[in-house]
């Protein structure tokens, strides 16, 4: 009992520390990559190749003055960034980072918790995440924030339906909600990857997940050119950074879940499972950055029309086709 608790705590600390480091370095990765795409150099002064930049940024933000804008709602204003930051971290708990290993005769699963409703747990946390933006927008007492918060919440709930529907086809084949189990079903051969059985579902899922994490081309909530910074216009220093890092945490979580659902998670030949897992996650992060560096932003009416009139019907067709193929 005591030993298993100890193992649990160690696992959590390792995953949590790894995740925080990944968040910090995804900011660096994105800045460098976007810079290369735009023929710039990006941050390269602090440390070799700019690798110490995230740490320097963290210290800078810690020494900024925190203040509350006047007429803002103090409690909700403080609560909002926390709600935006915590759910994506908690979602990592059900994603397996490697195969079951044996340490001193004990079988240790390399995931934090094998919850049998894995995917639903991730979606539940995602649906809580909306409040971070909506409350930030409302509590700031700023017009830009309110508009940004409203837009983002309407966008997020619209794409949440597409996100939920896109995995239904996969669930029909996998017959389980557990992400660990879904990864196990895909191990052995590349052809077992659900990407090959549900290609349409993958694209729909990834597009919706991109919209959920408010990334370009779906970054309407922030839309610098029209809304200053959207829902976090009024947030100073580290409090702004919580939203900012929350977005990166969301990106990493989405990459992990996508890799696990459609691309076999940790499974792969020769290299150790964790390495395969990280390669796949970084590949998706790169796609995120690549898309950001390439595509312009949607207009709001285009965005809503795309979500309801393109994504939503397509997900239903995907379910119908999957159902027909499975029966016939």
């Amino acid at each position, binding site marked *: 009992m005591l030993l*298993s*608790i100890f193992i649990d*705590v160690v*696992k*959590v600390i390792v995953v*949590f520390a790894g995740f925080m480091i990944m968040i910090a370095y995804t900011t660096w990765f994105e800045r460098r990559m976007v810079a290369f795409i735009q023929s710039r150099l990006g941050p390269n002064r602090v440390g070799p190749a700019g690798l110490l930049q995230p740490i320097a940024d963290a210290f800078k933000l810690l*020494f*900024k*003055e*925190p*203040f509350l*804008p006047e007429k803002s709602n103090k409690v909700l204003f403080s609560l909002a*960034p*926390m709600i935006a*930051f*915590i759910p994506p*971290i*908690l979602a*990592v*708990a059900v994603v397996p980072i490697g195969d079951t290993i044996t340490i001193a005769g004990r079988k240790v699963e390399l995931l*934090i*918790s094998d*919850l049998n409703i894995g995917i*639903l747990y991730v979606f539940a946390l995602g649906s809580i995440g909306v409040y971070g933006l909506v409350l930030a927008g*409302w509590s*700031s*007492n*700023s*017009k*830009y*924030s*309110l508009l940004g918060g*409203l837009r983002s919440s*309407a966008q997020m*709930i619209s794409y*949440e*339906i597409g996100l*939920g*529907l896109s995995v*239904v*086809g996969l*669930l*029909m084949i996998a*017959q*389980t909600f557990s992400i660990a189990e879904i990864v196990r079903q895909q191990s052995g051969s590349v052809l077992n990857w659900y990407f090959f059985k549900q290609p349409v579902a993958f694209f729909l899922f990834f597009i919706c997940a991109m919209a959920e994490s408010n990334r370009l081309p779906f970054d309407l909530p922030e839309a610098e050119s029209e809304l*200053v910074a959207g829902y976090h*216009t009024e947030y100073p220093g*580290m*409090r702004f950074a*919580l939203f900012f890092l929350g977005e990166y945490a969301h990106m990493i979580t989405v990459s992990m879940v996508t890799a696990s659902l459609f691309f076999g998670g940790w499974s792969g030949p020769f290299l150790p499972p964790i390495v395969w897992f990280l390669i796949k996650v970084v590949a998706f992060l790169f796609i995120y950055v690549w898309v950001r560096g390439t595509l312009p932003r949607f207009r*709001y*009416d285009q965005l809503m*029309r795309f979500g*309801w009139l393109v994504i*939503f019907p397509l997900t*239903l067709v995907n379910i*119908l086709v999957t*159902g*027909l193929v*499975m029966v016939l």
Partner: protein
Amino acid sequence: MFETLFPIFVLAFFAVLTVLIMFYLPEILGPKTKSKRKYSPYECGLIPQTDARERIPIKFYLIAIAFVVFDLEVVFLYPWAIIYKDLGLFGLFEMGLFILILLLGFFYIVGKGVLKWE
């Protein structure tokens, strides 16, 4: 049950702790200067004249209603998907009817222009 949930609580503990440190450490480290203008909401340099919390368009309410309805549909699809292999063609028909009725509502809101944002 406890064994599966305990690690999630530990993770939540670390996450909350980190967020609280990140949120409140600048209170100690950061400078504290007072100036009236700093606290006023940003409005591109103009002095805000009215309350920022204006009434929002009814469109958002309609989007939210549509979201609740179709989210319920999604939720019914989850358990259905899990046992679809056992239900077979019968399952496809029953869910097909369910979704068809809901799609009537979808076509209605599309026809009424709820999803137009011009």
